[in-house]
């Protein structure tokens, strides 16, 4: 990637996309002439690493795309003031309502990061965006339905997941709002972009603006997604899962084990309930709930995605608050239920 300055003549402008398209077609062409399934002769470790990483990417990409599309809608298409007018004025109720936005925009984790960025570019404060970020992957219809399918409406798991997600989101939002200078939690470049974007005149060509936005957001999110997927796969290949799941019956350790499992597996919150269900026979309900609370907020893939927007100090703050809260909820449930 040399930085030779080019004059954008009409012929040169399309070489970039041309090359990208060509690369995709050529690589798929290689594939067309190789067997469609079967072993590749790679060592098992490498092969499993690739299979796991690709499966995370294939599973997450639709949600990332959905999140980016919704963030473009929020940023480019929804007229200025429409969202803002619907929200209460005072900060606490305002954040409480914002934590329910996920019920309208069903983005799970992965999708919530681009959408939270879109909200901040629209002028939402970091505290409000973070409240949305934590709440959306739990308080959204798809997640609630899949959790209900897995665990049923009776029992505490679903209720505690919903209420716990709401409380945790508003707790984190409140802490960020109380921060001396919340903007310091953002990466400087993103913060500068927010300041520039708020109040700037809207583009006249919205479609072109949308396409440019799609390019910009994928440029930021995709490498993060791939790095997150790679890390999740590497951990899966390197650390035997048996050590984690062998301590299911201990009320304290099992909470820690399920939280660690959630943070390393990096499942999408839309579907993690079914995975958790397979542990329901050996793990206590509090541990399952801890898994369902922490997984959507903090995991390997999410940390990679959040790093596109937030500084490390925010991630530490977020992780500490969420881990403590979740562990407390899980332990109380294990003791009481």
């Amino acid at each position, binding site marked *: 990637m040399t930085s030779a300055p080019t004059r954008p003549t009409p012929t040169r402008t399309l070489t*970039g*996309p041309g090359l990208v398209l060509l690369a995709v077609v050529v690589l798929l062409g290689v*594939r067309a002439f190789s067997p469609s399934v079967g072993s590749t002769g790679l060592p098992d470790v490498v092969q499993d690493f690739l299979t796991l990483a690709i499966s995370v990417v294939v599973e997450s990409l*639709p949600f990332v795309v959905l999140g980016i599309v919704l963030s473009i809608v929020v940023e480019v298409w929804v007229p200025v003031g429409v969202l803002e007018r619907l929200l209460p004025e005072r900060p606490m109720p305002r954040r409480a309502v914002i934590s329910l936005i996920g019920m309208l925009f069903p983005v799970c984790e992965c999708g919530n990061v681009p959408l939270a960025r879109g909200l901040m570019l629209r002028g939402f404060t970091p505290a409000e965006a973070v409240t949305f970020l934590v709440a959306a992957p739990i308080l959204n219809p798809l997640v609630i339905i899949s959790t209900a399918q897995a665990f049923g409406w009776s029992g505490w798991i679903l209720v505690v997941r919903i209420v716990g997600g709401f409380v945790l989101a508003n707790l984190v939002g409140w802490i960020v709002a109380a921060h001396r200078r919340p903007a310091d939690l953002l990466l400087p470049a993103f913060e500068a972009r927010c300041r520039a974007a708020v109040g700037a*005149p809207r583009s006249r060509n919205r479609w072109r603006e949308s396409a440019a936005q799609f390019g910009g957001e994928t440029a*930021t999110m995709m490498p993060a997604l791939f790095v997150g997927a790679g890390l999740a796969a590497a951990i899966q290949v390197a650390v035997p899962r048996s050590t984690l799941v062998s301590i299911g019956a201990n009320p304290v350790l099992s909470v820690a084990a399920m939280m660690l499992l959630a943070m390393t597996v990096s499942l999408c919150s839309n579907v993690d309930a079914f995975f958790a269900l*397979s542990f329901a026979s050996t793990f206590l309900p509090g541990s399952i709930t801890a898994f369902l609370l922490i997984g959507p907020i903090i995991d390997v893939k999410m940390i990679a995605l959040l790093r596109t927007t937030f500084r490390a100090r925010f991630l530490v703050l977020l992780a500490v608050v969420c881990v403590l809260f979740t562990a407390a909820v899980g332990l109380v449930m294990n003791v009481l239920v």
Partner: protein
Amino acid sequence: MSSSDKAPAYLGLGSVLAVSVCTLWLAAVGHLDLYINPRYDLFTVVLAIVAVPASVAGLVVVARGHGHSHGDDEDGHGRTHEPDHEHGDGGHPHESDHEHGDSVQARARMRAQARGHRAPARSRASARRATRTVLGAAAALVTVGITVAMLVLPPTTLSARTAQQRSVDSPTLSNASGTQDVALLGSAGVDTSQYGVKDWAALVRQTTDTSALVGKPVELTGFVVPGRGDAFTLTRFVISCCAVDAQPVGLGVVTGDGSGAGGSGSDVPDSGQWVRVTGKLAANPDPSAEARIVVRAAKVQDIEQPADPYEY
């Protein structure tokens, strides 16, 4: 705008395009199930169809240099900011000679100075910029590597190694899909001929009175995870979402005379080999084992990997 400024956008859009096209391809030839649970196929395919034109449009707009610029932007800073200049870890190779990037740096530097770190701020900023470039390049490498692997390599199932590592024998998996009540099995009316490895494994785990199960005929397909002597575990992966959560389930299989550890082992297929096992359930000859029921195999037949290697 130099071509290097567009590189992150090309990388992001290119990888979206590549993964989406490949997803559609896999769905078309019926192998998407090697990565995700079929219940998410529709959603995945629909958004892949959305992503293809969106990324092509993005490529064209970025190439033309329209980026985010507004012709009437007077200070040359505001929204002309290309969105690809965020300095995340998941970030991208960032060229220091870029005007906007520099002004952002300057701003950050000014803030740092205002807080009273005059001298170190400059060197720290450049060190941070170098780190960022390295991390961005690494992220780009990972992105390209995984994308190319996905496009070029044929999809495969997880190996027996992963099954072992995720402990086939641990009694963690419940009968998530609601297998028949065990008590009913005692009565002859229940049809167990369609039971797979997952169903039997769940039943064996739950049952306290194993006598109801002994003697049941089974015909099962799975792959081999070797055990002791002439015993092995007939294994399938169960997938609730995607391959990352694949949970192995298995049933012990005893071949030969069933004497367990003392056997010759000659009948046991290679690790990872797909087999069809015909036989009957029997009490486990190894009294120290956790599972009290095994399959006493009458016949173990090597087969090709089935088209749908995972259970759901």
